[in-house]
């Protein structure tokens, strides 16, 4: 039991930090531009595919750097030549634009790379078990993922709070007009933030590709979970995104590890149900089965009791 919990915690942290790489970009883009970017997870997928392709020529390490830069550049282009024009038509148009973009990217990835799973492996340097606990290995590559994700959080936090660009970005989220009238180039800032957000999503893809598989469906389930994180953390809050990512990562991981369910609850309450009871499927539910729904349940509860999220400011 305790061994499963330790691994569930490690794994939850890892999932959480990976989700944070995605959510941080999404929340930055939202707070700055007011755009809920539906294509965010698609940039994640592009990151993994680009890294795989580049890796064929250069190996893993240069690809780790080049793929996010490439996808970040693509994101910047999308903002500059797509989103900026759509912006004039309002937020709904922007939403629809990113929604369509997600489909276009998925179809393009499939046409270009094919529908097969790509054989994208961790670098040989990190392909060994870091330690073995209770008979289960913890791969060194996962520790590397943990470190990189933590590093990105610290770096991002430092940039946003300690540098001039970061301060302007922060100011632009709340007082865009003032920032513009002070002579700062607001459209350029938008392009920059969108590009950086896409690059972060791509980095998450590069890191996750070897572990979670590189195939055309890899963006599908991530998209919705990232929205949940951004809403729970509070739209626009980086700290909120981190906490919500970890919360959801751990929650899902623990729920699978713990074999508790309605039968245990009923047993504890001393209630018995006949096997042919019409609601027997509900009385047999257990936590591992519920694990994938938990984030959405949390989302609903959060919207009811604290609509602004953990760290969000209520819109005035």
């Amino acid at each position, binding site marked *: *039991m305790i*061994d*499963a919990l330790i*691994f*569930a915690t490690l*794994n*939850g942290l*890892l*999932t959480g930090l990976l989700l944070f790489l995605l959510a941080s970009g999404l929340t930055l883009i939202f707070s700055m531009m007011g755009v809920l970017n539906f294509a965010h997870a698609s940039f994640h997928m592009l990151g993994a595919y680009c890294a795989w392709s580049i890796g064929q020529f250069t190996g893993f390490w240069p690809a780790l750097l080049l793929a996010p830069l490439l996808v970040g550049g693509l994101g910047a282009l999308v903002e500059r030549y797509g989103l900026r024009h759509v912006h004039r038509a309002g937020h709904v148009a922007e939403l629809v634009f990113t929604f369509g973009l997600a489909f276009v990217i998925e*179809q393009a990835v*499939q*046409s270009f790379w*094919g*529908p*097969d*799973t*790509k*054989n*994208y*492996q961790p670098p040989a340097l990190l392909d060994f*078990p870091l330690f*073995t606990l*209770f*008979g*289960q*290995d913890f*791969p060194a590559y*996962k520790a590397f993922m943990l470190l990189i994700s933590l590093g990105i959080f610290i770096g991002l936090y430092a940039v946003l709070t300690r540098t001039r660009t970061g301060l302007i970005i922060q100011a632009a989220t709340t007082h865009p007009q003032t920032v513009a009238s002070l002579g700062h180039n607001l459209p350029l800032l938008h392009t920059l933030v969108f590009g950086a957000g896409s690059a972060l999503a791509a980095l998450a893809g590069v890191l*996750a590709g070897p*572990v*979670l*598989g590189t*195939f*055309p*469906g*890899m963006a*599908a*389930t*991530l998209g919705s979970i990232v929205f949940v994180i951004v809403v729970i953390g509070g739209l626009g809050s980086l700290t909120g995104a981190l906490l919500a990512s970890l919360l959801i990562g751990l929650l*899902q*991981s623990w729920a*699978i*590890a713990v*074999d508790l369910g309605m039968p245990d609850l009923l047993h504890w309450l001393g209630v018995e149900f006949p096997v042919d009871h019409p609601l027997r499927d509900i009385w047999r539910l257990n936590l*591992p*089965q519920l694990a*994938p729904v938990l984030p959405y349940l949390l989302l609903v509860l959060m919207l009811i009791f604290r609509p602004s999220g953990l760290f969000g400011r209520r819109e005035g």
Partner: protein
Amino acid sequence: MKRITRLLCTPWTLACLLAMSDSGIHAAGTKPEPVRIAMIDPQSGAFAATGETAYLQLLFAADYFYNAHGGILGGRPIEVIALDNKASVADTQQQLRRAISQGIQYIVSGNGSAPASALSQAIERHNRRNPGQRVLFLNYAAVDPVLTGADCSFWHFRFDSDSDMKMEVMTRAIAANPDIHRVYIIGQDYSFGTAVAASASSMLASKRPDIEIVGNALHPIGQVKDFTPYVSKIVASRADAIITGNWGADMVALARSITDAGLDVPIYTFYAAYDGITATLGEAGKNRIRLVHNDLANPLTNEEHIAFNRAFKARYPDKDASQPRIATMLTMLVSAMEQAGTTDPFSVALAMEDMRVTNMDGEQVWMRGSDHQAFEDLHVSVHTNSGIVFDADNSGFGLLAELTVPAQETVRPSSCQMARPTQ
């Protein structure tokens, strides 16, 4: 480029292909009318890889066996048309209507028992109401036993062993391994996953009562990104073998988490090869993953199959001739057409009942008349790179048959009560 054109076409494939074939007819003057077969399978979305592979197998088999030798029924070519159902039931029904309205009489489908079951029911209804334009359904991969059992239909023929037949062979292989005492079952949370778990438990209990089922986990299909938490539980259960019915991305991710965790136990499954899966599993899965399947991959002794594989590889270097049973299906269909002397689905269906054909490996394949289930040798193959002549994904790794169960030993009694139409 070929792939790009086809993918762009898929949502409108029919219109596209019709446009193309129209111009072809004009160019050639009076060409004999092709025998058209519509393949309704996912060509886009998460399961596109399986659909695309199957399409290429059928397309290639039609060209290789018949079109290159002057066609069938006195010179008619076979035309294969891919219709994209995105693995969804609603799209399946829409594509079926489209195919019927174009006058196509033969429907091939296989990826997923839910679309297959929808097709079987829709075709049964359509044929009853429109005796003048009947269609026939050839199923090469949907393995839910009910399709030839309680829900069987005269218009449905299955060319893959159902999941109970495969589980019978799988549990036989497990029972023969004296090192296995504790088995963990994990599967996708839908009809197929629960059916696999139930038949595994009951068949193991009768063959080796000393084997303990130490865990039985269901996870949502296509939702789990990382199986490590599940694997932690498998490790904690001290299982010495794993049974799973997982397929597609769920299979890759599960096997990956198991090997990442350093858990060294055999994995018994059905769908853990080809379309990038073999390459991804690579060295980590060597001698650890065992598949139960109809399609003998290695060792091949029959020249006919070897030549087929080589020719397929020459035409599609990135793909593998992974499902020879699709070729067997086409062989049987064409034999029935030639025997009936027509493409009328009713006559062809009657001709196919209790038909026996020899597949490329020289095995006898029997289509049972009472439930339209085909019986073919079943193999238990191991994922390895030694003794592999025909590898998968150009990875050097492939499937090597360790145990072959002859077709007659896989026969289970039929439970089908078929409503047979009259002419």
